[in-house]
């Protein structure tokens, strides 16, 4: 019944300065890497060296044969031939699947529809054609109540944090716990503190503040903490590290890796930060011109000869 409302749910185009901030962050990071003292000339982008660096990045974090994916199982998230248009076509025939325990990174230029894909998975948007399946359900066929139910298994980190500005930081993080669990007040507080600590925030300092009293980067981290609060088995991150300093970016990247390894959480991460994408993703989807032009492992991506992929990676 309420499903009729859903297609009208609108996504608001992110302000461009979010992009600027994201670019700024990865710049920062690149400089930080350069400062680490290898002999790369900072201002010459040499494809071979970039690839080598990326390869080093990948192997630093995992062995090639240590694949956390469980490809025998049914995919947790599956898009089949999904198309969507607003005033112009945004996605055309997009298909990919995410297996249990896998981390898929979605990368692509700004405005190509990455956030739109995440919203499709959550049924905040409905596709014009094609099928979106989550945990084996064709989510378009679910009633509004069933969709709310499915979403309880998912945690979402919004591009713009989307913290409730009428609630304190504590109440924001406690919100999913109060809605879906029967935890008592002490347990909720314990959980909120734990989640704040893993995103590098001091609980005693920020818990009672309003979101508007936090810096942009702190809001982002509170957003991550809120997404994680109910310990969901599926996490969706829309640019979790844009606008963060290199240290915090590292923390969040490590956090996503750790969740995947220790708790077998399935994640979809939209990111502009190709370095952290290479570090944490089992597979990378590159979105370009309404389509997924590459979907595969980071190793395959660096090895690809496709000119667009080359320029895309070269740009970083």
């Amino acid at each position, binding site marked *: 019944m309420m499903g009729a409302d859903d297609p009208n749910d609108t996504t608001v185009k992110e302000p461009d300065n979010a992009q600027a901030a994201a670019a700024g962050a990865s710049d920062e990071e690149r400089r930080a890497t350069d400062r680490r003292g290898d002999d790369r000339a900072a201002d010459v982008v040499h494809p071979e060296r970039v690839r080598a660096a990326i390869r080093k990045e990948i192997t630093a974090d995992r062995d090639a044969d240590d694949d956390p994916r469980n490809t025998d199982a049914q995919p947790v998230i599956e898009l089949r031939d999904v198309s969507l248009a607003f005033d112009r076509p945004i996605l055309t025939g997009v298909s990919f699947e995410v297996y249990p325990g896998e981390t898929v990174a979605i990368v692509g230029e700004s405005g190509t529809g990455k956030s739109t894909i995440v919203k499709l998975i959550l049924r905040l948007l409905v596709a014009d054609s094609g099928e979106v399946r989550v945990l084996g359900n064709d989510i378009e066929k679910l009633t509004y109540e069933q969709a709310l139910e499915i979403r309880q298994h998912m945690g979402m980190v919004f591009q713009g944090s*989307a913290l409730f500005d009428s609630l304190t930081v504590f109440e924001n993080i406690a919100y999913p716990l109060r809605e879906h669990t029967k935890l008592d007040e002490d347990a909720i507080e314990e959980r909120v503190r734990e989640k704040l600590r893993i995103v590098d925030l001091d609980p005693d300092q920020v818990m009672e503040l309003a979101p508007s009293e936090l810096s942009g980067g702190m809001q982002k981290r509170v957003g991550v903490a809120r997404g994680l609060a109910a310990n969901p088995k599926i996490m969706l991150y829309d640019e979790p590290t844009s606008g963060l300093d290199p240290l915090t970016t590292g923390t969040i990247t490590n956090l996503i890796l750790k969740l995947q390894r220790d708790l077998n959480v399935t994640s979809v991460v939209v990111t502009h930060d190709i370095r952290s994408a290479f570090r944490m993703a089992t597979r990378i989807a590159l979105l370009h011109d309404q389509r997924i032009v590459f979907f595969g492992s980071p190793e395959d991506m660096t090895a690809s000869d496709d000119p667009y992929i080359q320029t895309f990676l070269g740009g970083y």
Partner: protein
Amino acid sequence: MALLQRINAAARDKVFSLQEAFVLAWNAFRFIFARPFYGQDVIQQMDAIGVQSLGIVVLTGFFTGMVLALQSAVQMQRFGATAYVGSLVTASMIRELGPVLAGLMVAGRVGSGIAAQIGSMRVTEQIDALNVMGTDPIKKLVTPRLIAALLMLPALTVINDVAGIFGGNVIAKYYLQLPTSLYWATVWDQISTGGFVLHFIPNDFVHGLVKPFVFGGIISLTACHFGLRTTGGTEGVGVATTRTVVTASILILVTDYFITQALLALLPA
């Protein structure tokens, strides 16, 4: 051709919007009896809609009563009927001006506030966040505002009426030198000659309380509707608030006419 297409698109948009508004209204009412019930939010909204509107409602009521008394005094002096000024103020305030003025003031003050708040929640993805965390935004945001407005508007209207009648009293006493006791006698006289429902509820009160109840629904639902439909960033929030105030005010004045006609037919004096 292009013009026809544009008109066609605009008309379709209007129809969709109207349909959406009715679906929203239906759900908002339905969820009054559904779980989970966000009682805390209802209390908070009653404070925001009711308690915080007290000031402007008392002020507008008082001055409207005064101006009513003043205008009618000038006219009535010609017929030597100034003794009935209390009766006239009461009739106008309770039946018409009280509900309509309170409605318009609340539409301006509260309607715009609700639209702005929900609109900015929409554009900053907080509505999406509610959905994602398994909360129905209509249950959480719309129904509490609806309940609060349905309860608080009649209360505000009564206060508005009383302030107006007191305002009339001031003019009667200091401008017309009418004794206060006579003023209040004509007030009661007016109420009791308007007829009664079930022998003891004055018809005036029925008029005076049915209207604000309906207006409360109109204001809260219009504001939530435009707030939830907001698109286009902060500029869109401005558009939503303006639309809310204009639409709610027009709807209040139009429905006021029809309610009056229906009640006059149903409850003859």
